[in-house]
C-alpha cells in the first residue's frame, strides 16, 4: 500500500502509522495549500465498541522544508486528548450523537495545533479543537456529514483544520500487488510457477473500498509555507517548491505498570513513522531497512539512494513477466543507475526534462513530497498527473485522486527513464502497467472542498452490503 503497514514495527502500531500524504494547491482556494496526513490504516467501519481514534501518546507532525536541505523549516504539531464522560458503560455513545458536544457521546477526542518555525517562536493555532466521532450507524450518527462539517475549524489567518475519520481514498488492488506483483489486467502475462490455479487476467479490485482512515487535514496560505512567504507565479523560481513529509513520534519509554493498572510514557519524543512519497518505504526500501528508515529524517536519505538507483520492482518485472519488458531487462542488466527514480523520489525533477515544469529542490537527496506552488490547479485534472500531462498532479505534490500506484508502476517499468536518457525507448507494456483501479473504484466519492476525502462509511450499513 502507499504506506499502510509498510514496515514490520509500525505494522504493530496503527495509531502512529502514517499511511498517505497529500499536498496540493487547493483547487477551490488556489492561494492556499492543503496538507493531508492519514493514520490508523484499514479501518473496518463496524470496529466497535472501541472505535478508531488518534493516539493521545503520539506526536503527529507535518513538516515543511522550503530551502532544499531536507530539514524542517516549518512544522505543524498535533497532540490529542481523549475524554470519557462515563467510564461505567461500555458504550461509545448512549444515544444519537447530533452535535460535537452531544451528552450522548461518551468518548470524545480534542486536539491542539502548534506551528513551529525553525529558530522562531512556537505559535499555538488552536486548542481543544474537537474531532468528530467515527461514523457508527443510522442510530448513533444519523447526520454524520453535519458532524464532520462542524469539525472543520477556522484557525485564523486563512488557515483551517480537520482531524477525524474519513473514507479511505487510496485506491489500490492490494490482493494482486502483494500476490507476487500480479496486477490483474496483466495476470495472463505473469509467470505461473507451473500452478494450474494461477489467476487469469481481469479487472482490478480496490482492496480499500470498504475501509476508513483517520485524517489530519490542514489548509494554509501558500505564504505560510514558502521561503520568505513567496507567492509568485514563476514556476522556475526555487522558492516555488516546498518539500512535505509527515512524522509520528512516541516517547522513548513506555511502562506497563501492573501496580497502577495503567501504562505511561516518558522522555523525549522519537520518530517511529514517516512518510512523503507513496510506496517508497513500501516497495523500494528492503525489509531489513524499513524500520530504520522510519526513524530517520529525510536529510540523511542519501544512505538509501542505492535502493532507488537499482529498484527491486524494476528488477522483478522482467522476471515475473517473461518477454514483456525486454528493454527494461536490458536497462537493468546494463547496471545504469535509475536517475529518473532518484529525481522523482529524492531530489525533485529538474528544469528542462518536462516543458514548463520543475520541482527540483537541489542535490540533497531526501524523501519529500515536492510541490511547486506556482503551478495552479488544473481545470481538467488527469489522475495520471505528470505522466498524463497534468503538471498540477503527482509527483508534483499529490492530490487525493491521483493514481499513484499506476504512475509509480509505469515509472519503475521504465517510462520515465526516457526523460534522462533520450536514447532509451520504454517497452510498450510499461505505459500500460496498471493495477486496474481508479477513483471510480471507490464506494464514496471525493469531496470538491476541504477536507477533500469522502465521508467515512458507517459500521451499520457497510458489512450489510
Amino acid at each position, binding site marked *: 500500500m502507499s504506506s499502510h503497514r509498510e514496515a514490520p514495527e509500525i505494522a504493530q502500531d496503527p495509531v502512529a502509522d502514517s499511511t498517505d500524504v497529500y499536498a496540493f494547491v487547493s483547487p477551490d482556494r488556489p492561494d492556499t495549500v492543503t496538507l493531508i496526513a492519514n493514520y490508523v490504516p484499514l479501518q473496518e467501519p463496524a470496529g466497535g465498541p472501541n472505535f478508531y481514534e488518534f493516539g493521545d501518546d503520539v506526536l503527529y507532525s507535518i513538516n515543511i522544508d522550503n530551502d532544499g536541505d531536507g530539514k524542517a523549516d516549518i512544522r505543524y504539531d498535533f497532540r490529542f486528548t481523549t475524554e470519557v464522560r462515563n467510564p461505567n458503560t461500555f458504550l461509545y455513545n448512549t444515544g444519537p450523537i447530533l452535535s460535537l458536544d452531544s451528552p450522548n457521546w461518551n468518548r470524545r477526542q480534542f486536539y491542539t495545533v502548534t506551528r513551529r518555525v525553525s529558530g522562531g517562536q512556537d505559535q499555538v493555532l488552536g486548542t481543544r479543537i474537537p474531532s468528530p466521532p467515527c461514523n457508527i450507524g443510522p442510530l448513533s450518527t444519523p447526520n454524520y456529514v453535519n458532524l464532520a462539517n462542524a469539525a472543520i475549524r477556522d484557525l485564523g489567518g486563512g488557515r483551517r483544520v480537520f482531524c477525524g475519520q474519513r473514507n479511505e481514498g487510496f485506491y489500490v488492488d492490494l490482493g494482486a500487488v502483494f500476490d507476487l506483483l500480479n496486477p490483474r489486467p496483466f495476470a495472463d502475462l505473469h509467470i505461473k510457477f507451473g500452478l494450474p490455479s494461477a489467476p487469469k487476467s481481469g479487472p482490478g479490485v480496490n482492496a480499500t473500498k470498504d475501509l476508513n482512515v483517520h485524517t489530519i487535514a490542514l489548509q494554509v496560505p501558500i505564504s505560510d509555507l514558502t521561503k520568505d512567504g513567496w507567492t509568485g507565479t514563476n514556476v522556475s523560481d526555487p522558492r516555488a517548491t516546498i518539500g512535505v513529509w509527515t512524522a509520528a513520534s512516541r*516517547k*522513548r*519509554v513506555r*511502562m506497563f*505498570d501492573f501496580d497502577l493498572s495503567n501504562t*505511561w*510514557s*516518558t*522522555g*523525549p*519524543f522519537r520518530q517511529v513513522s514517516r512518510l512523503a512519497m507513496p510506496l517508497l518505504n513500501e516497495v523500494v526500501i528492503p525489509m531489513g531497512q524499513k524500520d530504520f528508515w522510519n526513524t530517520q529524517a529525510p536529510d540523511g536519505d542519501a544512505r538509501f539512494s542505492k535502493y532507488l538507483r537499482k529498484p527491486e520492482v524494476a528488477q522483478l518485472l522482467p522476471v515475473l513477466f517473461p518477454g514483456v519488458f525486454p528493454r527494461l531487462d536490458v536497462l537493468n542488466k546494463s547496471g545504469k543507475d535509475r536517475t529518473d527514480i532518484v529525481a522523482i523520489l529524492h531530489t525533485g525533477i529538474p528544469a528542462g526534462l518536462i516543458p514548463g515544469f520543475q520541482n527540483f529542490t537541489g542535490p540533497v537527496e531526501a524523501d519529500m513530497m515536492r510541490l511547486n506552488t506556482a503551478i495552479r490547479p488544473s481545470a481538467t485534472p488527469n489522475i495520471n498527473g505528470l505522466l498524463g500531462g497534468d503538471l498540477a498532479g503527482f509527483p508534483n505534490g499529490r492530490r487525493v485522486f491521483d493514481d499513484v500506484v499506476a504512475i509509480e508502476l509505469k515509472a519503475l517499468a521504465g517510462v520515465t527513464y526516457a526523460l534522462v536518457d533520450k536514447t532509451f525507448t520504454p517497452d510498450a507494456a510499461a505505459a500500460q502497467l496498471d493495477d486496474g483501479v481508479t477513483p471510480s473504484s471507490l464506494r464514496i466519492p471525493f469531496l470538491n472542498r476541504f477536507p477533500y476525502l469522502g465521508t467515512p462509511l458507517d459500521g451499520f450499513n457497510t458489512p450489510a452490503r
Partner: protein
Amino acid sequence: MVDAQQASVFSRRKAILTGAGLVAAGAVGGLATAELAAANPQLVSAENPTVPVMVHLRDVPTGKFDVFFGDTLVSVVDINFAAKLAEVATTIQPQS
C-alpha cells in the same frame, strides 16, 4: 550522584532485565534526584511526587544511566551504583 539511601530506595523498586541493560522504573524519589532537580525542578519537586521517571542503566562498565522524565532525557554517571545494580540483576532470580 546517588547515595546509599537513595540506592536502597531504588533497590526496592521493580527491576526488569532488558537485553544487556537494566531498566528500572518508579515515581520520583529514587535515582539521581539532585541531577533531575537541576534539569527541571518543577517536574521533580516534592510537591509533584508522581511524575513518572524511568531510569535505564545503559552501560554497566561506564556506569552510564539514561534518566527519562517529561519530554526530557538526561545522562547520569555512577559506576558504583551501576555495579550494585548489575550485581542485583545477576544474583536475584527474576520475578515471574
